[in-house]
Each structure stands twice: as C-alpha cells, then as structure tokens.
C-alpha cells in the first residue's frame, strides 16, 4: 500500500471566512484498528474559531459522526480535544477565546467496533458533520458534511501529510497537571474586595503570550487574569464574580483551567489542571499587596524628588540628570504596578502623582511670588 499524500483528507469546504476539512492520520486501515481523525480549520485573517470555553460569545465546534453507521453510538457527537488557545479582544471590553489561522482539533480515536462489511467496497467511508461558528467581530455559523475514504489493508499505515499534522496538533495540546517534571500548580481562592482565583505555577517562566483560561462553568463571571512573576514561576490572579447571590456558593466546587504561553525548559508549553476549591475549604488569604503599596509610595516620593531636583534654581547638569533619572524610575515603578493593580487603580496612582506635581508647582509659584514681593 503506497503512502498517498492528501488522500487521508476530505476536500476543503471553503467560505469567505475560512476553510475546513477532515483529516485522518491513517492512509490505510487494518480491520479493528483505531482511526485518528482531526478537523482542520484555516481561518481568514482576523477571523477565529473557538476553544471549549468560547469566552464572552460564540461556541466551540461540534462534530457528529454520520458514517460508518456501525460506529455511531447513542450520542453521535465525537469528543474533541482543544489545542492551547489565545485571547481575542472584542469591543466593549468583551473577549473571545480561540484560534486564528491554522488549527487542527484532534478527535477521540474511532473505529474499534468491527464493520459489518469492511472490505465490501474495498474501503471505508468516514463522514462527519461539523457545526461551527467563526467570528471576527461579526459572527457566521457554518455546517458541513466532510467525508474521506480509506482503504482497508492488512496493517494500518500512516499518511505522510495528515499524520504529521495531527501529531503536531496533539503535541500542542495542554499538558496535564503532574506530567511535567519540576512543574507544580497551586490554586486557591483569595478573598479581597472580590473573590479571586489565584493560580501559582512553579517551574515555568512567563512570556508575553502568558494567559489563563477557565473551562466552561456557570458559577462565576471570570475576568482577565493579572500576571505577576514569581522567583521560579508565574502567578495568575483572576477576578471571579458569582453569577448568583440568591443561593450561597457550594462548599466546594471544581474549576478546570488551562495556562498558555508558558516556557518550560526553553520550549513553549500550555498546562491544564483541575482543582477542588471552595469558600469553606480554603483558609488561604491573599497576601497583603505590600509590594504594590510600596511601589506606589516609592513612585510618589520619586516624583517629589524629581520635581525638587528639576525645579531648583539655578539648574545644573548633574541635578538635571538626577531629576530625569528619578522620573525614569517613576515610570519603571508604574510599569511594575501594571501587573499588580487594576487599570482603574493605576489611573488613580497616576492621578495622585499628577496631583503631587501640581501641588509642588503651586507651592513653588506661591513661594516665588512671595519672594518677588518687595
């Protein structure tokens, strides 16, 4: 059986927002051997398809098995695996979670049940129906039947084009908690003015793409995480707002989450974990944000110092340089604060600094006027 590249794939179904097809890792199938399928999307630039939790809008693809009928169980839906996603910002502060460009969703292996007439037509036709939504800011739902034909052979063989594609997709799936040496995940509920989920991952480094997503659940509205570095890891803090207040939160509940854009041993990875949490079960209290308070205070003092250095008459080069260096440090403090406070908090701190500058300027002006008085 020669390896036929591209044979283990359905034709592409195309629309103006992207294309989709079914691929199989196997080029030929031995009777009773499992078959590994994937649904491959290529979205148009700016358009995306969804993760298992789509975010504020949308829904993940659904794949139903149509043929062979012998493999269709009571529920035709085939389980989908989801590669590490990313976040898309939408107008109004909304966001979506998904994929843009090329993405392959691996499907749970099929085909261990024997076919009634395996070699009848010299092969087997695998057909699925895929339902999906693709959005840019606008959204368009699509539904296609995708089919591919595989020959039956003594032994299963791999397709030279589809198999590596599926392999890459499987490798890009988030790693399960506990499967990476040296990586530890800790999650707890923190109570400040609002509920927050704090996830600390040791043994990884952050990257600009680091993000954390929670799997579908109906207890909370979940916001964007604040990311802060740990000495040997990263810390995510996600605001959680209960969706009901008429009934108390359950004593314990389970949240599953996926952290993406992490670096482990020099390679990019994503991690997934599930944790039992609960207001009753957790005694953990978030550390007082001393560091943030310290940084804000430091920024304020530095601003005052910079003002004093820069405004002093007569000016000197050294004093000027020191003044600008102090202002540079203020900017550095604000940059460090970005990860620790909400945008509103940062705006407050900046306003306070502005107020400080204004106050000092006013005082100097008054003093100047008094000095000018005969």
């Amino acid at each position, binding site marked *: 059986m020669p390896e036929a590249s591209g044979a283990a794939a359905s034709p592409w179904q195309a629309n103006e927002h992207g294309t989709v097809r079914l691929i199989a890792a196997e080029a030929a199938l031995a009777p009773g051997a499992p078959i590994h399928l994937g649904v491959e999307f290529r979205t148009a630039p700016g358009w995306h398809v969804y993760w298992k939790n789509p975010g504020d809008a949308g829904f993940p693809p659904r794949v139903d098995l149509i043929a062979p009928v012998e493999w269709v169980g009571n529920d035709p839906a085939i389980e989908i695996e989801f590669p590490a996603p990313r976040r898309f910002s939408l107008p109004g502060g909304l966001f979506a979670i998904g994929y843009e460009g090329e993405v392959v969703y691996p499907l749970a292996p099929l085909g261990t049940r024997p076919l009634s007439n395996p070699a009848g037509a010299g092969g087997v036709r695998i057909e699925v129906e895929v339902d999906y939504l693709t959005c840019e800011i606008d959204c368009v739902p699509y539904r296609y039947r995708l089919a591919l034909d595989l020959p039956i052979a003594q032994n299963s063989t791999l397709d030279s084009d589809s198999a590596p594609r599926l392999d890459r997709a499987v490798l890009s799936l988030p790693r399960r908690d506990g499967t990476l040496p040296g990586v530890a995940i800790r999650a707890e509920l923190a109570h400040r003015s609002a509920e927050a989920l704090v996830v600390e991952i040791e043994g990884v480094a952050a990257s600009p793409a680091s993000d954390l997503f929670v799997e579908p659940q109906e207890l909370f509205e979940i916001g964007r995480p604040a990311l802060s570095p740990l000495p040997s890891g990263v810390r995510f803090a996600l605001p959680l707002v209960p969706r009901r207040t008429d009934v108390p939160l359950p004593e314990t509940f389970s949240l599953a989450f996926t952290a993406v854009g992490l670096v482990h041993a020099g390679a990019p990875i994503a991690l997934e974990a599930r944790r039992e949490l609960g207001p009753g079960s957790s005694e953990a209290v978030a550390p007082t944000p001393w560091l943030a308070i310290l940084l804000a205070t430091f920024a304020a003092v530095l601003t005052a110092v910079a003002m004093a250095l820069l405004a002093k008459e007569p000016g000197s080069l050294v004093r000027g340089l020191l003044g600008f260096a102090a202002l540079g440090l203020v900017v550095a403090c604000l940059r460090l604060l970005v990860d620790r*406070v909400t945008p509103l908090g940062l705006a407050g701190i900046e306003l306070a600094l502005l107020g400080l500058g204004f106050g000092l300027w006013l005082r100097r002006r008054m003093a100047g006027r008094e000095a000018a008085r005969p």
Partner: protein
Amino acid sequence: MNKLRIVLATAALATLAFVVAREPAVASVAVGEVAPAFKLNDLTAKAHSLDQYKGKLVVLEWINPECPFSDRQAREKTMTDLTRKFGQVVWLGINSTNPKHQDYLQPAEHLSWAKKNGIDYSILYDPTGGVGHAYGAKTTPHMFIVDASGKLAYNGAIDDDPSGRKAKPARLNYVDGGLTAELAGKAVAPAVTQPYGCSVKY
C-alpha cells in the same frame, strides 16, 4: 517639614487610590440582585423604564437583527411564540449596538425586520451600551428574566441548542422553563447558563 507633609499626603493618596481601585474588573448583575434600572427609547421613540413594569415579570432579550443568531431565532419564532404563550409577561428587546458599528440599524430598517418576522414586542435602543454593560450582556441573544419584585431571576442563553441543529420541540428553552417556574411560584432552574451567539457590538 512642609515638603515631608506633601510627600506623606501623596503617598497616602496613592495607597488609597490603590485600595479603592481593587474592585472586580468584570461587571454583571447576579441572579438574586436587583436588576439595574433603565429608561430607554424604543424604535418609535417611546420611552420604557424598568420601573413602569414593576409587579410584572419582565424578559430582556439582547437583540441585533444583523447577527445570524438573533435573525435565526426571529425566523424560527422562538421569542414571539413565548410572548404568545406568556401573555402577561413584558418582553423587551434591547439593541446595544454602537451607532458607529456597521450592524447598527436605523429605526425604519429595524422596524421592517421586526415586522417581517412578526415581532410585535418593543425593541429598545441602548446606543451608549450603558444598559448592556450594567447587565453584563455579552451576546445576541442574551436573556434575562426580572421577577415581579424587580430582582434578576435568570441570566443566560435562550436554549440549549447554539447551532440550531435540533428540531424546535427538542430544544430545552430556558426562558420558557424560567417563566413557567416563576408563574408557578417555584425556583427557576437553571437560573444561570452560558449565553451563546454573536458578541454585543458595543
């Protein structure tokens, strides 16, 4: 001494700003809480406020005719069937589309779309998106039930069939279930679900 005072005052101010600002970054109204009041104009420029319907069950449907999900539900008469079934319930569509977005429809176009689909309930414009944000409306459709006491009783999807693949009678319509429970004096279950559809075009 004076300078020290200013520095200390500013440091205190900065700390205060930080503490005050630690509020949740996500806005939405929880089931069991008082539904945010609003006063909005409908497509015929008639004003509706939530207050004027106090004592009645009110359904709020976030709507956008240009969104395939709103349009499908309109064509399938999902909402209008419920307004017929629950005649005593106040049903309000709310369109929070930003007037600068291409999906924004002028009243005449909006009315003709409603008429074509047999929609006779009022649809309100929320051009600033303020009411949408107050409720945490995310999708079209996104459904809310406000009970007779003005509290939120349901927040979520219209039904359990995002892709619309099921036959209509086979769908679990959460708003139908919620209104039935409310009218029977029972607890709404489920009271929260994940809404699906297009994002609201704020």
